[in-house]
């Protein structure tokens, strides 16, 4: 294979290569038109002082000052730590729940639409409103969670104003909302596994668990990785649900990195510092993704 690349290219390979770049063109044209300039601006801003509430200070070049400031900013450290916690809980959480939902939804139902709808609903509910609905569920007086506790004879809890409980409630909401995305990707993967594999396994006397371990999981691996990486990227950017449920409270104890960046840029209008934080966040995401890509690089010519 690698020898073939070093060979002089045949006319067929040349034309394939030309076709390949032509096929990439639409995607990259779109990216260039929409995000190239914003990303360049973001990086440029991160090396300048740019505080819109203090325009008389101008926008001088400050080198790495914004980045150095981030290193000593306690609130930034806390926000990073909270974000890491959300990732550690909600990514595996969503993948496990999503896998469960996908397996359940892949059963041969007589009527399929209620199941499909059940799978899609959490997702079709705009994020902002999902957060607000869960906030209502965990309210002290009018919330369903405390109604259940009261019904069972327990004291109601201050879900959203106790840091650990608020974290739990937010994780639950995120997992509920994002597991349907995972389930959808995995369900598509399940549907491409040929039935004959299971029939053959059945003939060989394999148990359900063995079939799951030996056929389903390996065949689903690519889909699971897709779900994992995207859940991770979106988890790094966790914003809407904690924003709607606690607005970062009590104090700053549920504030994520994305929320802090949002506050810094949109509320405080400190574009310079906000951009530096955004670039730092990008670097972390990129590191995680590159580890993932290295891990899954496979030989395209298998089968």
């Amino acid at each position, binding site marked *: 294979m690698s020898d073939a690349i070093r060979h002089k290219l045949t006319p067929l390979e040349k034309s394939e290569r030309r076709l390949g770049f032509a096929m990439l063109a639409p995607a990259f044209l779109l990216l260039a038109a929409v995000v190239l300039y914003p990303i360049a601006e973001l990086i440029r801003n991160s090396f300048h002082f740019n505080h*819109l*509430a*203090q*325009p*008389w200070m101008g926008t001088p070049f400050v080198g790495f000052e914004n980045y150095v400031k981030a290193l000593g900013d306690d609130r930034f450290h806390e926000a990073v730590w909270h974000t890491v916690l959300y990732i550690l809980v909600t990514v595996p959480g969503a993948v496990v729940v999503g896998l469960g939902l996908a397996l359940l939804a892949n059963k041969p139902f007589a009527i399929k639409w209620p199941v499909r709808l059940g799978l899609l609903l959490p997702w079709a509910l705009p994020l902002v409103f999902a957060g607000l609905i869960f906030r209502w569920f965990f*309210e*002290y*007086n009018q919330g369903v969670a405390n109604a259940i506790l009261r019904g069972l004879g327990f004291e109601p809890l*201050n879900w*959203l*104003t*106790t*840091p650990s409980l608020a974290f739990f409630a937010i994780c639950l909401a995120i997992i509920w909302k994002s597991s349907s995305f995972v389930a959808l990707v995995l369900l598509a993967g399940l549907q491409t596994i040929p039935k004959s594999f299971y029939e053959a396994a059945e003939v060989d006397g394999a148990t359900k668990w063995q079939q799951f371990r030996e056929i389903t999981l390996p065949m689903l691996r690519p889909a699971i990785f897709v779900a994992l990486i995207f859940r991770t990227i979106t988890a790094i950017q966790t914003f809407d649900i904690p924003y709607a449920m*606690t*607005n*970062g*409270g*009590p*104090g*700053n*104890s549920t504030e994520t990195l994305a929320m802090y960046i949002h*506050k810094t840029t*949109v*509320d*405080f*209008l400190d*574009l310079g510092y906000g951009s530096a934080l955004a670039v730092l966040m990008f670097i972390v995401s990129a590191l995680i993704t590159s580890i993932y890509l290295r891990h899954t690089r496979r030989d395209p010519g298998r089968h």
Partner: protein
Amino acid sequence: MTIRLTRRMLSLFGLAAGLALAGTALAQAQTTLRIFTGGQQRPDVMRQIVDGYMQRNPGVKVEVEVGGATSEQQQQYLNTVLASKDSALDLILIDVIRPAQWAAAQWAEPLDAYLGAERDAVMARYLPAYRAANIVNGKVIALPYFADAQFLYYRKDLLEKHGVAPPKTWDELKAGAQRILAAENAPNLRGFETAGAPIEGTVCTYLVPMWGAGEDLTKDGKLNLSGDAAKKPFQLWADLKEAKVTPPNLAEIPTDRIRQNLQAGNLIFGMTWGYVWNRAQNDADSTVKDKIGVVPLPGFTADRQSTCIGGWQVAVSAFSKNKAEAAKLARYLSSPEVSKQQAVLASHLPVFAEVYGDADVLKANPWFAQALPVVQAARSRPVTPRYTEVSEIMRTNMNAFLAGTKTADQALADMNTRLGAIFR
């Protein structure tokens, strides 16, 4: 025959020419102004007002653009538009806490030149707090559109039933609430609520008792958090919580929950803004019609009652292409005539003292008679270009204290360090 024809042709020609002339005249004079308002500032009433303006000024067309409903959503949109120096908006309704920020960012066109010789006379007519809020470093940044302030709402029926007078001090409020709570023994009834969630209103939850103790957040431009007055708010809210007058979930209460609880009959006293009385009185599902009273907020002593100022202002965008016309409209929107119109149609508190006494206004809002002294005594939250940061520090610390995740000392120490970096 020929004559008639010619005459008809002539008249037709004349008509056509006349139409064409009128058309060009219209086209020349037609200026389109776009005004931005939030969903809560009654855009329907704003439309009625500008319709009247357009009838009187046929050369001007005014479009009302309704943005995100909350102050935060509006700010997200406006920050983007204005940071891009976009000319799409000519006039913008801004919160009373924003003029200093807008002046610093140079987003608002100073209106002094457009007011000309009348400047001082025009500004003198407004309530003093609004005059002060809209003049930043000697420049008129915006003109007041309507006023607002925090009041104490109470259940008239419950207070009368248990022989409690509307409280003038926090101690009276505590005693009254305890008495009613004990006598009623209703599991869902709560004594007192104010905003405690990490939202803008919670800034006032801190400031009102501090003002009540006779101090302000800053003194001569320097942070003033070292004295006893800075601890007063923490002591007050801890005391009311201890006495079980405030509910255990105060830290999750946003502004509107106070109204909802009041309207559902679950609350004796509520500290909140001017929009509540009208809703409690006129909403179809309100259970407390004619049972709600409004008085000034209590103080630590009966003679020192303080409250937070609110309300909305009209600013002319510094990037507008029709600043002169926009300034004219801004002056109209900030006139006594419009103030009265808003009071009658939307129960918006007027920005002119004389409008409070107007018969039509009082007919629509009987409680406005008591509202004037409150609005006159209302105070401004700190005036600084970096107000959003100041607000954020105060509300998150107040919220953390109410939730019990920080002690008063920890919250105060954090406020001191972080606010200290801003008020250097």
